[in-house]
């Protein structure tokens, strides 16, 4: 019957409508669809996932919503919204309250692991992701990648239909071919069948892969992750004779010594580590001893910026340092090379602190250092009794079957002609494979090339079949968080484009026809849960993760390692280090505009990657920022814009991965250079190379041009001998009588001691407040729109500066200069002390911005809204107006959240409770650096911070009486270094 319908119903037409993508036009087209006969039948056929969703109570509305409520949902203010139309449900589920957001727990993957999230759904469309407050890893905090996932969901550049030889095809067509292929594989036991995938933690995928490999014994699985866990597995093998994950417990750590281990830097573990570190650092203020951090690194990292002592040494020298430290602590032989004077001083003080804080100290060695060196860390920590306290070891979270082999093996086999079918699972080797392997050259030699991915990327272009992968937010699936706990990924809406999930795809490989998305996952957990499946399944869906599924520590004793001598290095050569990009990671997020426009923490660069060189190097080569230079590693070379990085080791050059994409999408193509091209297979993290100046300059877009703050007191510090700042005892005199704030007086206090500059706040603000992306040229002109900026300053010697981060939102001054300047009452004060910006009253005189001493206001110079038909409008928060051309905007303290709490409180006739209003930046911050609340409530966290001795006001002398204030940073550098 349904099939019949789908006969009468032109599926191709439907797919075209769907694939056409684009804002209202898109939704409208879905509407048209709903009216068409046989849509549901066709839907069953083409979108079992959606159909499954439809039948599942609680999500029934999703598709209808997609058709209908997007119009209702008021893509607030984005162009000529069809506010004249109203489309009710046909059948409204009970729990739906139109206009009220709902929340679902799910997870988004990063590097194979997943980040547990809580998604905000407005009228059936996810608009915001935040860390899952229930989950031990995130506890509600998040990072930029998590925040931006929701924009990627609506990316119109995502591939929208299967392609065969680059021509539109259908899933059915693929499945037809698959039948033949399977017959072929079966005949040859899977000989010549290869599957290439990134790191996998999904129990379902693992189950399915195992099944596949057992069905076709001779088939092979190759794992390739450009970043992943770097060289940790080898290190673990050296130390323990088996693969293990290292887990830090920074919340227990009084003395942390890091050798190039950027524990607080971007990555799957950032939130976990940042929370632990800040918890310890926060506690320590009352006086449970300071956290001392000794960091040795070649390139400034977020961890380095908050260190007590920071030793700058070339990347290759770190190994020697580690060896010396291990020797000092008596777990290894002294290195052949001797240390420099400062290196030795640092090493001894580090060793002392490690010893003094036995059981509460931690030696962390970067996962990209040579495995034998890394293997020293477990020895030291074991010796100091830190194992189990500040670090523990567990089963690898990532799938690492004995049979699995590497990308290099694959390339070798292909060249040997041993591969005739290659299936690429959501991986992009054609772009990200080490240049040395020249993967894209050999790939075409494979007869049958099948690619499953979100985008039609570099690899997809080289494959016969490209199959669109459903976005995690529209998928059924599962995966493990970094702590090993299993998270269930559930769809928040039916696939926008013709995508299928990875488990669905594998099910097809296993012979299923049009497998429903949910089945594979259900099956996995049905096995796991056994009897009380329904209860535990529903609970897991609700919580977003499977209760007590986290991995348990395993008691292991590290074995001593012998360290091979370091290969000699020519004096004219430099250390070339590779690092993931803080905005686009390994390149998978390259087409997400929010991330491209996110100023990178330490350079404040947007839309580009650069070749970071030390000031000395720049001096020697007479380089200025933006000059084109070329890095040569062996016979491979890559050219990029030079960037002078203060505090970088003299002979170290830093390349960041993730740029130089050629088929990422309209946003990312052609930005920056690809560091992969000079990456070697043996060691992808440190190479010996040379530097050469090539002609020309490249314009770079930074959001902050000046970083030296010497002579100004924007950021203040306290230290052991001056533990508190001079506090203002009586308010400054003012010509005018003060305004009363009888009810709430909202205020924010930002602890500079806890800020690690991770940008979570900025990206959360972008997502929450519909902040426009303006593009590289506009950013270069100084027209970026982020309401919240994280200023980065440095003081002292440019070769060894001290770094500071200072988040600067609107100060919400009680005596606001901006308000007094506005001729039309477009920015005025509210009774709870918020500096209101009324877009619809603004005529754009920009006086407010001229008068603002903090320059926190942003102006819509052009119409920065996405084109009316862009699907990205669906990511908009309907509770926040999308600003049109010619109006000023700025941080509102997330007033929509305050109003929501206000209404909730008023409906029950009570006051707003402490913690009831949480701003987006505060919610995302993994270190609780940002605190928001009611200043009139002496018990509120913000009021408490205001009473702290470290409290200070930015530009206090201007008498603007800001509501946003700061806590000074604690300078715990030892006397001799501190200036």
């Amino acid at each position, binding site marked *: 019957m349904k099939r019949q319908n789908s006969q009468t119903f032109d599926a191709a037409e439907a797919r075209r409508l769907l694939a056409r993508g684009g804002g209202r036009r898109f939704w409208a087209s879905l509407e048209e669809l709903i009216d068409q006969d046989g849509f549901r039948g066709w839907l069953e056929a083409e979108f079992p996932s959606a159909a499954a969703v439809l039948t599942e109570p609680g999500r029934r509305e999703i598709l209808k919503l997609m058709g209908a409520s997007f119009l209702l949902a008021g893509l607030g203010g984005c162009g000529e919204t069809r506010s004249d139309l109203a489309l009710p449900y046909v059948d409204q589920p009970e729990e739906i309250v139109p206009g009220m957001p709902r929340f679902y727990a799910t997870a988004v993957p990063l590097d194979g692991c997943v980040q547990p999230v809580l998604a905000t759904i407005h009228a059936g469309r996810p608009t915001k992701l935040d860390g899952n407050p229930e989950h031990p890893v995130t506890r509600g905090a998040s990072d930029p990648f998590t925040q931006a996932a929701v924009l990627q969901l609506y990316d119109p550049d995502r591939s929208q239909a299967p392609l065969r030889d680059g021509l539109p095809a259908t899933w059915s067509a693929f499945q037809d071919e698959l039948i033949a292929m399977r017959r072929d594989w079966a005949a040859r036991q899977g000989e010549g069948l290869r599957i290439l995938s990134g790191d996998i933690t999904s129990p379902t995928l693992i189950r399915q892969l195992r099944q596949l490999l057992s069905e076709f014994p001779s088939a092979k699985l190759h794992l390739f992750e450009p970043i992943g866990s770097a060289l940790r597995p080898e290190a673990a093998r050296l130390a323990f004779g088996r693969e293990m994950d290292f887990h830090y417990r920074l919340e227990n750590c009084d003395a942390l010594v890091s050798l190039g281990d950027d524990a607080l830097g971007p990555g799957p573990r950032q939130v976990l580590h940042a929370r632990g570190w800040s918890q310890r650092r926060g506690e320590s203020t009352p006086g449970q001893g300071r956290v001392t951090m000794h960091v040795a690194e070649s390139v400034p990292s977020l961890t380095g910026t908050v260190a007590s002592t920071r030793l700058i040494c070339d990347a290759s020298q770190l190994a020697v340092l580690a060896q010396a430290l291990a020797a000092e602590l008596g777990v290894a032989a002294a290195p052949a090379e001797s240390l420099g004077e400062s290196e030795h001083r640092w090493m001894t003080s580090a060793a002392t602190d490690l010893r003094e804080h036995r059981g509460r100290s931690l030696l962390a060695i970067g996962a990209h250092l040579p495995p034998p060196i890394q293997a020293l860390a477990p020895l030291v920590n074991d010796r100091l009794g830190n194992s189990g306290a500040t670090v523990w070891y567990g089963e690898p979270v990532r799938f690492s079957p004995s049979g699995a082999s590497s990308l290099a093996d694959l390339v070798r086999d292909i060249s040997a002609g041993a591969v005739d079918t290659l299936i690429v699972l959501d991986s992009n080797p054609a772009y990200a494979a080490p240049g040395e392997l020249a993967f894209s050259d050999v790939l075409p030699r494979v007869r049958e090339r099948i690619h499953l991915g979100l985008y039609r990327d570099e690899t997809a272009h080289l494959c016969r079949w490209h199959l669109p992968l459903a976005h995690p937010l529209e998928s059924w699936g599962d995966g493990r968080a970094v702590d090993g706990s299993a998270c269930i990924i559930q769809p928040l809406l039916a696939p926008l484009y013709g995508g299928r999930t990875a488990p669905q795809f594998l099910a097809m490989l296993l012979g299923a026809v049009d497998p429903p998305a949910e089945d594979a996952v259900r099956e996995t957990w049905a096995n796991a849960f056994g009897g009380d499946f329904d209860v535990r399944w529903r609970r897991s869906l609700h919580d977003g993760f499977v209760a007590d599924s986290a991995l348990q520590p395993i008691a292991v004793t590290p074995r001593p390692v012998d360290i091979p001598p370091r290969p000699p290095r020519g004096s004219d050569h430099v250390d070339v280090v590779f690092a993931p990009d803080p905005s686009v990671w390994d390149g998978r997020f390259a087409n997400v505009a929010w991330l491209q426009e996110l100023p990178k923490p330490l350079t404040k660069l947007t839309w580009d990657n650069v070749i970071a060189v030390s000031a000395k190097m720049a001096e020697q080569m007479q380089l200025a920022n933006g000059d084109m230079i070329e890095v040569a590693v062996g016979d491979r070379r890559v050219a990029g814009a030079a960037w002078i990085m203060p505090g970088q080791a003299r002979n170290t050059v830093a390349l960041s991965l993730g740029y130089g994409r050629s088929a990422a999408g309209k946003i990312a193509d052609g930005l920056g250079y690809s560091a992969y091209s000079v990456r070697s297979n043996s060691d992808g993290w440190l190479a010996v190379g040379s530097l050469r100046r090539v002609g020309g300059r490249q314009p770079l877009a930074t959001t902050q041009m000046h970083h030296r703050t010497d002579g100004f007191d924007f950021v203040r510090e306290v230290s052991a001998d001056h533990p508190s700042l001079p506090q203002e005892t009586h308010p400054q005199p003012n010509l*005018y*009588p*003060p*305004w009363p704030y009888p009810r709430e007086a909202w205020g924010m206090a930002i602890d500079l001691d806890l800020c690690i500059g991770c940008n979570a706040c900025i990206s959360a603000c972008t997502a929450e407040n519909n902040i426009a992306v303006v593009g590289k040229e506009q950013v270069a002109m100084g027209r970026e729109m982020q309401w919240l900026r994280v200023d980065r300053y440095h003081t002292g010697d440019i070769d060894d500066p001290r770094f500071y981060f200072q988040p600067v939102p609107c100060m919400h*001054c*009680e*005596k*606001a*200069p*901006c*308000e*007094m300047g*506005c001729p039309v*009452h477009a920015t*005025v*004060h*509210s*009774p709870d002390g918020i500096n209101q910006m009324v877009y619809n009253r603004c005529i754009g005189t920009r006086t407010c911005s001229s008068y603002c001493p903090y320059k926190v206001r942003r102006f819509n110079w052009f119409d920065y809204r996405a084109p009316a038909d862009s699907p990205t409008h669906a990511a908009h928060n309907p509770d926040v107006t999308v600003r049109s051309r010619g109006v000023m905007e700025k941080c509102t303290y997330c007033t929509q959240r305050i109003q929501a709490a206000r209404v909730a409180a008023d409906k029950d006739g009570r006051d707003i409770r402490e913690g009831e209003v949480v701003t987006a930046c505060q919610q995302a911050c993994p270190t609780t650096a940002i605190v928001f609340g009611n200043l009139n409530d002496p018990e509120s966290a913000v009021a408490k911070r205001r009473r702290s001795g470290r409290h200070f006001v930015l530009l206090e002398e201007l008498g603007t*009486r800001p509501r946003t204030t700061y806590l000074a940073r604690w300078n715990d550098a030892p006397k001799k270094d501190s200036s």
Partner: protein
Amino acid sequence: MPESTHYGILAEFKSPETLVEAAKRARARGYRELDAFTPFPVHELDDVLRLRDRRVLWFGLIGGAVGFAIALAMQMFTNFDYPINVGGRPLYPFSAFAVVAFELTVLFGALFPAVGMLAINGLPRLNYPVFAASRFHLASKDRFFLCIKAHDPRFDPSQTRRFMQTLGAESVELVPA
């Protein structure tokens, strides 16, 4: 003959001095309804012809007062009607209101006398008897005219005309009403 048929008699002089002299003698003769037409203001005439009118200045004063009042009322009312906390400033900051108050004082202080002056002078008045006088166009060039209006009790076309000639006028002309 009825006076209504005449506007008056116009006598033309070469210089302000001669005009003033003539005006004096005319008044001495007892003529009261005198007027003069000159290419530029001749101050002596004001006394001779006993011209006295301070109304224009009063207009200025009133205008200024009105403007000031309007400005102050407007600014205070707007803040009274929708009281908003603007930058923590008071609702009625007179220091800030002073500016617009001053402006409007000047604006109305200038508008009133300007309009008033034209009004009292009965301008615009495009059609006026004297324009009919054959040599009157010289009044805006380099000639100075004395006029004895017809409704002067002592006005008598022939006599007055004769008298005028005795004043050393360049020309004397009877202007029809």
